[in-house]
């Protein structure tokens, strides 16, 4: 189907702060979906709660701005129930790695065919700039007046260590690169994770803004990275928080079956061995 980015733009006007990184992420998602070519009614976009979690409403896909931290369980349930839908999940670093952090390893190990996009701004934007799980050590916020004493989580490292088949990192400083990455994630047949360094212009630090990204970002492809090597991906993932390395960290060359495929296989196997209804009733009558 010949679709363009505008086909995925809803009439709802984003209320994000002007300059917010999430605008560029939204643009990249529109463009990636246009390249994929599935019409909006075949797409479901699930999010949690946060500024970034408003994103489904700004698309023409079916959307559910759900409960804080619960984008992944809802997206997985939906994908199992309606396997024909293209399912996207999205949210912030607070939504995904703090309150919802417990769901990530299970989404990875279940490996259902969905794409999880995290807009990682190292803060809780919606609730006015508290520490988030990816906030850097020493960051001063309303909840860390003297500087954070907690080490940030490294989402790239842990999603890779959980065994995810597709892991990438992008920034809206390079919308073209981010578009390609999201498109590749959607095409990957299994759980795909895209971490986007999406600056919060209201509560974020100067060095986390788009201009700083443009000046410092390095493409993994230019570093001779082999995206089929998990060992190399893990090595590069250690740079998270120190250096902005963008691109596909890891893409499983031989994707294993998804949970949905396994469930359908099991259902078919059980269905062929199942007794006809009349025989089941007989079994009850005899005993």
């Amino acid at each position, binding site marked *: 189907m010949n679709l363009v980015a505008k086909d995925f733009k809803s009439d709802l006007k984003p*209320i994000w702060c002007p300059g917010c990184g999430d605008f*560029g992420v939204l643009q990249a998602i529109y463009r990636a979906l246009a390249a994929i070519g599935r019409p909006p009614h075949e797409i479901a976009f699930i999010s949690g709660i946060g500024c970034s979690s408003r994103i489904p409403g700004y698309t023409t896909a079916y959307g559910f701005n759900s409960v804080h931290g619960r984008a992944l369980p809802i997206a997985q349930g939906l994908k199992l129930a309606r396997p024909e839908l293209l399912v996207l999940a999205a949210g912030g670093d607070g939504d995904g790695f703090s309150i919802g952090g417990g769901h990530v390893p299970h989404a990875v190990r279940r490996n259902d065919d969905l794409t999880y996009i995290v807009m990682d701004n190292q803060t809780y934007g919606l609730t006015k700039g508290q520490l988030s799980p990816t906030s850097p050590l020493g960051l001063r916020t309303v909840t860390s007046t003297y500087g954070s004493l907690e080490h940030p989580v490294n989402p790239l490292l842990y999603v890779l260590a959980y065994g995810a088949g597709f892991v990438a990192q992008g920034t809206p400083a390079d919308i*073209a690169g981010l578009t390609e990455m999201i498109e590749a994630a959607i095409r990957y047949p299994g759980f795909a994770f895209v971490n986007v360094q999406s600056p919060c212009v209201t509560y974020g630090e100067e060095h986390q803004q788009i201009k700083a990204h443009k000046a410092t970002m390095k493409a993994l492809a230019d570093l001779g990275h082999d995206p089929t090597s998990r060992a190399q991906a893990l090595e590069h993932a250690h740079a998270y928080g120190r250096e902005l390395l963008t691109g596909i960290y890891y893409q499983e060359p031989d994707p294993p079956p998804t949970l949905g495929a396994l469930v359908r296989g099991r259902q078919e196997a059980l269905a062929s061995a199942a007794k006809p209804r009349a025989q089941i009733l007989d079994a009850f009558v005899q005993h």
Partner: protein
Amino acid sequence: MSPTRNIDFTTLTMKDALDLAILIEEEAYDRYSELADQLTQHDTPDAAHFFRLMMANEEKHRAALADRRDAMFASAACGMTRAMIFDVEAPDYDEVRAFMTLRQALETALRAEQKAHAFFVAALERITDPTVRTLFEELAAEEVLHQDLVRRELAKAPPDPAIATEEFADEPTGE
């Protein structure tokens, strides 16, 4: 980071060049429209108003190019798509802020025009077709004229207040 994808400038035809130029104006129009909406929503009327004037300008340029294209190639199918361009003349999303001043909005437009000029100049290094070269030279020169226009407006614009406008940025609502 190239602002274009899958375009070979060495073999660009006049029809494709005109279509590309039209899409660039269209992209800038859409972005100014989005930015004006954002700023209206966040109580920044002067900058929003200026971006709406820029929308009108971009539309005027687009229409002029479209007329030229129709005269030369009538209804021949367009071989270029918006998926091939990324913010060639459109201001970047991160250029705007709530409560930005008219002066800052003008500076944003100036940077966008400079970006577009740099794009046409860089493309000229690869273009071989003489008619396409003439068109791109003309487009690059127009971007310089637009910059001059914005600079003249900047000279008339009131100075920025002593307090940084960021101090007033409105915050999102909690949920």
